[in-house]
């Protein structure tokens, strides 16, 4: 198996699906001639031409809506946002149109499409460019929300997302684009809605998705040195959320910490924590704890940003509290 970068993995996913299905096309800012602000779409214009790999103006509301309309009418658009921070000006097309038109039409239309791009923070980009939006999208019925942590999952899940007949929010990270992992040559799909155990352990369950999986792993290695074996569960899909996998693990470890880059109030961590206390109340030896960014916008200054961003240290402290080790 060859090692591949995250950006190569999603490029392969899109390329393979576009070869496989004429109705799949890609549009977004700088995706064609510039070959992607983060070089994700390199070579795609050359292979598929300007009718299937389309540069758009900075009109997120307009081109998101064109995407939804084309999906209603039989196409399978992949709409790339340069980052999901910019999707906010077009979000009405996602929340009110993509998510609800099927229901309001009594099932007369399907909206098979993918909105994808980098999500959450990527260093010192300031408050508006550092928001983790998975909690917002997962709040609204009618959408599927995916946030893959590594190249293997990303490729398999993106291919499934493109083939899925629902609107899918597919979240990536500028900071993982360069990350490498072995990715098989032969085709594979990863089912939407199924989580995976990224590390086995019996002392505490860590639930983490996207970039946070790597923070959780660093914490787990530290903890192992202190004899605490953490089990890391990556739901991969935020909605529908594979809560059963978490319940299983908690029944074994009786302790849960959720690591989530969203803001805390009503974030993914709150939802998972709520469901676990409801479904596994009698198995919990300690209250569920969460590690998130604080409830303040991202600061620019590196010093403050490093304080703001969830660290392995924060995770270890939370584990100490659920294991009563502090």
């Amino acid at each position, binding site marked *: 198996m060859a090692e591949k970068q995250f950006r190569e993995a999603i490029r392969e996913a899109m390329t393979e699906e576009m070869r496989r299905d004429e109705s799949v*096309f890609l549009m977004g800012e700088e995706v064609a001639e510039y070959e992607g602000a983060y070089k994700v779409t390199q070579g795609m214009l050359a292979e598929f031409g300007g*009718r299937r790999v*389309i540069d*758009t*103006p900075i*009109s997120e*509301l*307009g*081109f*998101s*809506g*064109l*995407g*939804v*309309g*084309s*999906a*209603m*009418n*039989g*196409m399978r658009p992949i709409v790339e946002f340069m980052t999901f921070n910019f999707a906010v000006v077009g979000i*009405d*097309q996602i929340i*009110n*149109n993509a998510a609800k*038109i*099927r*229901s*309001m*039409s*009594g*099932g*007369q*239309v*399907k909206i*098979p499409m993918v909105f994808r791009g980098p999500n959450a923070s990527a260093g010192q980009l300031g408050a508006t460019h550092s928001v983790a939006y998975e909690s917002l999208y997962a709040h609204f*019925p*009618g959408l*599927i929300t995916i946030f893959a942590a590594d190249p293997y999952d990303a490729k398999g899940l993106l291919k499934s997302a493109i083939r*899925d*007949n*629902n609107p899918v929010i597919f979240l990536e990270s500028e900071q993982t684009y360069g990350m490498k992992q072995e990715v098989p040559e032969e085709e594979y799909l990863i089912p939407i*809605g199924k989580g995976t155990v990224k590390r086995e352990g019996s002392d505490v369950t860590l639930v983490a998705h996207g970039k946070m999986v790597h923070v959780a792993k660093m914490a787990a290695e530290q903890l192992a040195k202190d004899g605490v074996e953490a089990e890391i569960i990556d739901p991969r899909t935020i909605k*529908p*959320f594979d*809560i059963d996998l978490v319940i299983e693990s908690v029944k074994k470890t009786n302790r849960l910490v959720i690591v989530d880059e969203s803001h805390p109030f009503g974030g993914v961590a709150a939802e998972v924590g709520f469901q676990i206390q409801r479904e596994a109340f009698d198995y919990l030896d300690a209250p569920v704890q969460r590690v998130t960014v604080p409830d303040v916008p991202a600061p620019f200054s590196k010093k403050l940003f490093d304080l703001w961003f969830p660290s392995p240290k924060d995770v270890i402290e939370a584990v100490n509290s659920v294991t009563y080790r502090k």
Partner: protein
Amino acid sequence: MGNETEVAGFTPTGAVYKSTKLPKPTRKTHKSLGIKEDELLGLYECMYRQRRFEERAAQMYQKGKFGGFLHLYIGQEALSSGLNYALNDDDDIITAYRDHGMGLARGISAKAGMAELFGKASGCSNGKGGSMHFFDVKNHFWGGHAIVGAHVPLGGGIALANKMRNEEKVTVCLFGDGAVDQGSLNESLNLAQLWKLPVIYVIENNGYSMGTAVQRHSAGELVDRALPYGMKHDVISGMDLLTVIDKFRDVAEEVRKDSMPWLIEVRTYRYRGHSMSDPANYRSKEELQEFKSYDPIERLKTYILERDLFDEKKLDEINGNIDEEILEAIDFAENSDFPDDEELYKHIYADDDFPYLR
């Protein structure tokens, strides 16, 4: 009050008589337009069906037969009817929430329409959408959309899909004068012109955005929204059926050939309030009377009678049949079942066994 605000206010005063001016109707006759006489009769029937459907719907609403919003199209039927006639059956249409007229013209039956208002499973959107969300996708009617301006990009997207498949189809996207103020329109016009999309954007300028006269919510002429992009555009009267047919037939053919978009402002008028709760105090009786004097149905009736194409009896017969049809539609709606409880969880996702929905 109007004057008081005229002096100091930011938004221009509402003391406007004649919120919208009508351009001259076409000089052409049905003959010169190649419209057969029975087709003319069909068009009369089409307009009258919309009219009666809504008059009855209003009664049912007042009787409390159904809830939600009810926005009536009465007065604007020449556009829906003429547009549908001018287009091919497989051309695509999408409109805003004032959608009964366009939906019926496009092929939704009075029964399916009335049942939708009643929220019955037999409705044109299975009772899931209601008055503002009539859909009939097999007849290429894409709804019925209630967030003002939000369906405008969808129209371009439907056209984009047709173009990508090299289908020589035209998409017509209708919206009100109030929707002109949403940036979604400008973004769509730029994209449509840049990408040469086979779409006709239609402003249904009925003089008011809810209680706000056009001059109070939009600076300049609405049709001029096309100018920055070099988009082809025109303004026509929406109170005259033949004018609508004349214009849209030409434009549709042109778009089919050169796949370049148009923006057309259609001047029309709604006789009723914005919705059932609106007394419409913001406009003068004179204005309403004047526009009623251009009533598209009366106008076609006069046209037919003056030319002795058919006699009064024939038209009364049609009216009678339609009146029957609408009453039957009401019975049908009354006697249809509500959706099963299960339906609450259906049609959210493409797969009805979508996990963790409950």
